[in-house]
């Protein structure tokens, strides 16, 4: 079983990101479960969501404490939230991170990947200029770093889930797939 934890802020589509992943993995033939932890639902507040992917039906109903992947939709959360809490040794961290900044402060023992999902979402006019909705871009990046999910399944899942601007969301995910890179600490 693969377990994934998502961190973001209200308004970025964190919960939908977890659903997009579950839906994509389901298209790949896996059993899936995605679920949010709802805090107080308001724009800008930290939001956490989770997903499980397995080859057999998922019966476990407790929360995820030791994820294999952590997906960070908002790098400002790196101050104040323990994003790596419980992450398995050798686990993967995908961060929406503006290019050119220094990632050296992060601990070793994990694999880090970055992409500028904020710019990609803004380029594709998803959300507003001030508050781009980055979830579909980051999930394009996830398809890049996780071998279980093909880009095609992720794009189909996004097309399925996006209520409007389906083409723009798919284009953002495709661009993000190309622009995601591993960062060596």
């Amino acid at each position: 079983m693969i377990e994934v934890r998502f961190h973001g802020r209200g308004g970025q589509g964190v919960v939908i990101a977890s659903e997009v992943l579950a839906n994509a993995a389901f298209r790949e033939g896996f059993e899936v479960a995605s679920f949010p932890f709802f805090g107080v639902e308001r724009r800008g507040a930290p939001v956490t969501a989770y997903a499980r992917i397995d080859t057999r039906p998922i019966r476990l109903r407790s929360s995820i404490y030791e994820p294999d992947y952590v997906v960070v939709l908002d790098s400002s959360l790196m101050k104040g939230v323990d994003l790596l809490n419980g992450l398995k040794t050798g686990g993967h961290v995908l961060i929406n991170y503006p290019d050119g900044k220094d990632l050296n402060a992060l601990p070793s023992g994990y694999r880090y990947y970055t992409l500028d999902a904020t710019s990609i979402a803004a380029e594709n006019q998803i959300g507003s200029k001030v508050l781009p909705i980055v979830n579909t871009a980051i999930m394009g990046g996830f398809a890049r770093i996780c071998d279980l999910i093909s880009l095609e399944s992720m794009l189909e899942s996004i097309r399925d889930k996006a209520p409007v601007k389906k083409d723009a969301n798919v284009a953002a995910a495709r661009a993000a797939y190309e622009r995601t890179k591993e960062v060596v600490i």
Partner: protein
Amino acid sequence: MRKVMTGNYASAYGAKVSRAEVIAAYPITPQTSIVEKLAEFVSSGEMDAKFIPVESEHSAMAACISASIAGARTYTATSSHGLTLMHEVLIWASSARAPVVMTNVSRAMAPPWSVWVDHMDSVAQRDTGWMQFFCESNQEVLDTVVMAYKIGESRDVMLPAMIIEDAFILSHTSEPVDVPDQELVDSFLPGYDPEIKLEVGRPMGFGSLVRPDQYMEFRYKAMKAMDSAHERILSVEDEFKRAFGRSYGGLLDEYECEDADVVLVVAGSAAGTAREVVDSMRSRGIRVGLARLRAFRPFPRDEFRTLAKRVRGIAVLDRSYTYGAAGAFYTEICGSLYPLVERPTVKNYVAGLGGRDITPGILENIFKDMIDTTERGEAAEPEWVDVEGLERRWR
């Protein structure tokens, strides 16, 4: 067709494929997306139903009762404070023998405010005359909505049913759910056609005053109807299994209980986690089992008596509490076992209130504590699990 959806959407699809004709509801977290989805189905024409937006849950249930008495198949959904606000009319629904089906997204009561899972709201409606089904998965939610109409509308039952969905753990978890073909559901569940209904040109009194020489007979009949529901739940599930290939274990769903020394009783989504724990402990040679309480009303008294003859210890996990007593599942189980000459050791564990996570580690520690308690053979007091400030650690 199998697709990924939340427990709330599974509820909405359940009402849709059951062809509910009147839906009256008021929004409340975490139930809202059920009635949002149904409103969407109705406005798009996918569902041929009357959607009545109301100003409170009390009114929602009143509208459902009236529509049901007029011969319509009705559906509503609520949660926590919405359910408790309905309390008066819940009793009205069952006493009027209106087979309304409702999803309750089971959520903790305030204060302090909480939107997370807890069974206090549902358990507090124990005596309202509703059938109560606690569900473990989103598939079970959808399927139980369909079955509940068939059970409730049976001539020998005519009682309302509450489908209980754990807040967030089912309501907002997306997982694969098979939405059965409409034709198949139609052949399983015919339209609602009550013997007696409110009709123009056929005057009758509904809910009239009766004198003391008649009242008890009404109550006796409702009690007998709930007894009949026990058999109906089993026969409808058999029929459902033949038509759809899925079943859920009747009123008390036993897992690995056949040769178990100690079993754990839980209701709702925690049963899934408990199955993992049972498998894990059995792989280490510890003979434990799970008895999932699926129906709280009617209560599976006979099933518990049969189970009690096979096992030495029963751990009862209540996700609710009754101040000054113990968890309601525990007291009911003890009550049903009392007439037996030899009884297993039974202990109450109160856990998971207000969304506190019930982890595999906690369940394994409950099993271990129950094995110790059974071996010591001493009377056990109810224990609160995983509470800050108490000496004992459970995680």
